[in-house]
């Protein structure tokens, strides 16, 4: 084995480190989901509400064992693995402040509209001091909301994208697994 190979091997993460970093990612990466009243509007597929499409996306992410913590927000915010029925305003600022208190390392915001207060949301994003990626799942014609999302993501060097719910699942999974797929094809033990 050459010296270079030895150095490379030393730099490689051990299997346990990889496992634990997934475990830690589950604590430090926060998926911030908008469950405001407007999420009851129609999604990409006729007859399907945005909130139901979002539930489908989160369910798929869990099936793929993508590690993340989930924060839902409307007029207020809370940790919840359950996505409630849409109701209330879009208090993005309080959700971002909540992430700051939770010492988030990476925040992914999924929202369909404009927050209650843009200024407050921008201020909270500045205080957050971690990468914020933003996915806009609202109507494509709402350019003002999309511009705000871009501004929000640009503050931390994050990505802003207007996506369909189908694209959302692929993009979030890709972002959080870095292309590494969970190996689930284990064979049963022979007894």
């Amino acid at each position: 084995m050459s010296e270079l190979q030895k150095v490379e091997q030393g730099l490689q993460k051990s299997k346990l480190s990889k496992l634990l970093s997934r475990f830690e990612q589950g604590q430090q990466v926060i998926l911030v989901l908008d469950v405001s009243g407007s999420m009851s509007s129609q999604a990409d597929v006729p007859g399907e509400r945005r909130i139901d499409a979002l539930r489908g996306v989160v369910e798929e992410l869990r099936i793929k064992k993508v590690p993340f913590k989930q924060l839902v927000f409307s007029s207020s915010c809370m940790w919840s693995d359950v996505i409630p029925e849409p109701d209330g305003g879009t208090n993005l600022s309080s959700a971002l402040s909540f992430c700051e208190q939770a010492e988030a390392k990476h925040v992914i915001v999924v929202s369909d509209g404009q927050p209650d207060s843009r200024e407050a949301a921008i201020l909270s994003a500045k205080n957050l001091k971690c990468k914020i990626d933003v996915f806009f799942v609202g109507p494509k014609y709402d350019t003002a909301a999309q511009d705000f999302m871009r501004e929000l993501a640009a503050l931390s060097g994050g990505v802003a994208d207007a996506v369909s719910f189908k694209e959302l699942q692929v993009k979030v999974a890709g972002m959080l697994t870095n292309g590494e797929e969970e190996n689930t094809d284990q064979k049963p033990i022979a007894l």
Partner: protein
Amino acid sequence: MKAQTQSATRRGSSAFIKSPSLSREDSYFIELRERGAEAVVAVNLINWNNYGSHYLPFQRGKRQLIQPPREEIAINNFCEVFYSNKSHKIHVKPTTLERILTPYILAEVTNSHKGEEIFLTTGRIHVATSPEKRKAFAEQVFSLANRTEAPIYKIAALKAMEQCFVSYASNNLIEREVAEKKYDVYDKLQTLFWRGATPGEQTAAFGRAYFVLANVLEIGRRGK
């Protein structure tokens, strides 16, 4: 039962895995599910009587996330907690299972402690566990597996010890260097027992993996 009969006729293939028939008293439900699953069996630590007045106003509202149990569940009794795709709520109900081993508790979020791992949360209640609870659970399953010699329990004990090991390592309760070495060994054995060329190789690897984890977690040691 069929699997047990088949295994019992293959005597000598492994001294480690035997297949005695289990008595009813030895039939346990072992909760091995982890975060990501939508249902779990847990020990109830919530006094649901106190929740009646809290929850009633929510029943007409849109924000109710928990469907409280219809029958009373005493504190420290087991319950089933599951997410329903239909109602988009977490439902809680008493379990009909007789004997259960689980590392999880259903508690109020205000009673949470640092270092707890969350299985499921709604902001008000959560299903959680801790490294200490995982260790106690792994010890119970290990003891059951050794007492009954049932293969199904040995597999369950291995999984419980693996969950405990990851929990201990992530909370730095095992020295990192030791944890990495032991995990490397375990991981190689794991590959062998899932994909070994022969049943003998698989069962031998399984037996070694079992004791690697038991030793590092100090499970099953007498006179502790």
